[in-house]
């Protein structure tokens, strides 16, 4: 894992370099196109002409290699969690996770369902939660703005936590999966 060194340390001070980086990544959040749950229903309105999240430079991307932002839209079934983790691991740092709706927070409506995990942040780090079932586009836009602010202030550090506590996260994941490959 390589870090991101300052290319011109003599010209740009280290602090400013970080600031520039954060500025860049906050203004160009590429979202991965992954409808993990029913919350994805409110994504089309958010993307399209009424709410238009491209105003903030957020566009959906086809593959995880290109994306910075993972939206976990709604409840997470075990089968989906595995894919989410894979997709998350294929994304390149810095990467951010927004969890969507009530279900990934505490199970929501499906608190007693045998097939949905109840708390998403036990398995992957979550930078931001949006509550509600389902969150309105306004709430989503608000969350994006909040995430941008967090990135700017260096608080959206989920990817660092994932790197640091990788073993613990992986151990938690393996408690719900029987095996890792298909």
């Amino acid at each position, binding site marked *: *894992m*390589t870090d*991101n060194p300052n*290319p011109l340390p003599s010209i740009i001070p280290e602090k400013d370099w970080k600031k520039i980086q954060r500025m860049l990544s906050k203004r160009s959040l590429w979202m991965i196109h*992954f409808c993990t749950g029913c919350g994805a229903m409110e994504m089309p309105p958010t993307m399209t002409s009424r709410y238009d999240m491209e105003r903030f430079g957020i566009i959906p991307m086809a*593959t*995880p*290699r290109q994306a910075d932002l993972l939206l976990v839209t709604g409840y997470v079934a075990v089968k989906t969690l595995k*894919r*989410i983790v*894979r*997709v998350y691991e*294929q994304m390149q740092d810095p990467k951010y996770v927004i969890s969507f709706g009530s279900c990934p927070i505490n199970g929501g409506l499906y608190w007693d369902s045998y097939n949905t995990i109840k708390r998403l942040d036990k398995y992957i780090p979550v930078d931001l939660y949006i509550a509600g079932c389902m969150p309105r586009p306004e709430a989503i836009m608000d969350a994006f703005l909040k995430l941008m602010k967090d990135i700017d202030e260096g608080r959206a550090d989920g990817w660092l936590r994932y790197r640091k506590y990788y073993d613990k996260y992986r151990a938690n994941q393996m408690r719900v999966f029987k095996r*890792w*490959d*298909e």
Partner: protein
Amino acid sequence: MEILGIFGIFVLVPLIGSVIAYLFRKYAVAVAAIFAAVPSIALYPFYDTNVSRIINIGVKLNLTLDPTTWFFMLMLDTLAFSALLFAIPYIKKAQGNFATLILVALAGANGVLMARDFLSLYIFWEMMSWATYLLILRKSGEYARRYLLFGVLSAYFIIMGIGIVYYYTGSFLYSATTGIPMSGWFWILLFLVLGFGVKMAVVPLHVWAPYAYCAEQPFVAFLSGGLSKLGTFGILMAMYSIAGISILQGFGTFRGVSLFGYPFALLGAITAFIGTVLAIFQDDLRKLLAYSSIGQLGYVMVGLGLGTSLALGGAIFHAFNHAFFKSLLFLGAGAVIYRTGKYKISEMGGLGYKMPFTFLFVLFAIFALAGIPITSGFISKWMLYEAAIAKKFVFIAPLMLIASVGAFLYCFRILYGVFLGQLSEEHKDVKEAPAPMLAAMFILMLPLVIFSIVPGWILGWISKILVSMGLKPLEYSTFAYYSPIGNANMLIMWIAFMLLFMVSMIIFMMKKARVVDQLDNYLAGEAPTQVQLHAAHNFYKPLKDTWAPVLKYSINRAYEKFSQFFVEGFKEIRKMYTENPQDYAAYMGIAFLIFVLVGWWLL
């Protein structure tokens, strides 16, 4: 030096070597490589020599070493040496046989190049042809018969040409051509060009090539790169040395191009197009290269037909380039086949990660084939295009240009299907090709690089050939070359490319990248352990579907139908096929006589 000495070095040494090599059995190929190295190294001192001698042994024979011969010998002998070098690890069974035949073919080829009379030409030509036939026979009798059929056809054509010349002049010498009327010239040139055209695999006489090129790879490299150039040489001699430009012009001209040459140029452009299209759809690596070879020689044919000094220079240069890059490609394919034992492109994949040097050599050959400007392959194509465009030929130029776009398609097919994509489980342990193979490929790569930076050198040699044939010399400087309508400076291009490459390298190097496994890939979130990801089978299916109505009219099938007709009609005659070689030889002799008589009667 005396011409007989030269003859000794270039023809007799390989011939003697062929006998000696056979005795060494297990080391036959290595020994043969040494004997092949002798002429290819001995060649260099003879640069710019021009010796010729008429030997009178009842009939007058003429052996010559002039820049034309030298240039083509440079190609052939280097190729033969590389092919034999490559063959050292490659050929496992009947080594002596292989080594002997290659050397005989080399001797024959050198003889053809040195001959300046029809008799020795024919003798050496047959020597080369039969050695080739036997070499193909090592792989498959069926394929060899196809070759033989067309080889015999070629010989008939040549003999008819020779016969007509002899009829008019009573001499076999190239130089003794006074007194032939224009109608005679027409038949002579037609027969000779067709005869040599078979060797160049010009459509519709190309049918043998895809089969013959399935033989052992080192030999095929020599056959496709080297021996097919004898066709080029033959046509060049026939049209521009024996006949000469003034006789060609005598057929009438179309914008300064002989009306005799123009149809052949058009045929060449069509060949380039058809060869390319057919190459796109092949799944067998060898067949793909074979059709590509046909297509590339079509370009050469265009240049030979147009006959302006730019076109002819382009044709000779392209023949040279083709000799090297196509041999390199065949050798690269050979290396892959040697390591994996597979021929189908769709069964390979990912070998570039395991055989990086082979990949780089092949990549470079493919750059040359596609005409990417950082190789000399571009320059010859450029000359041919500009020659056609400057003369405003609106059929030849677009055909050539679109064929070169088509070349990108099959080039990428080779690269992706064989060297890129998914490395399959069974090829996990494939190793890099052995050192002699790599060395052979490296030798072949060198001229492609050198002449792309310094095209002036080779253009100088070619200019000399052109001048000797009474054409204007090419316009060139050390690094640049010119046509009536444009120019290109390779040095500036190289420098600019290198500088810009550095710029992107700097941007690139600012970050390090981590290497991940090939299955850590975008699979839409899935992570199977066993998955087939190599999309190489039926690669250009959309194109194939689109062209299916056209592709079903295959020339190959036309020939097969034709032969089927004979088979049906002459079931009785078929009983002559006793599978006894002596009988065949007898038939061939009879057929030969009939052809000669027919030729006689025609005139």
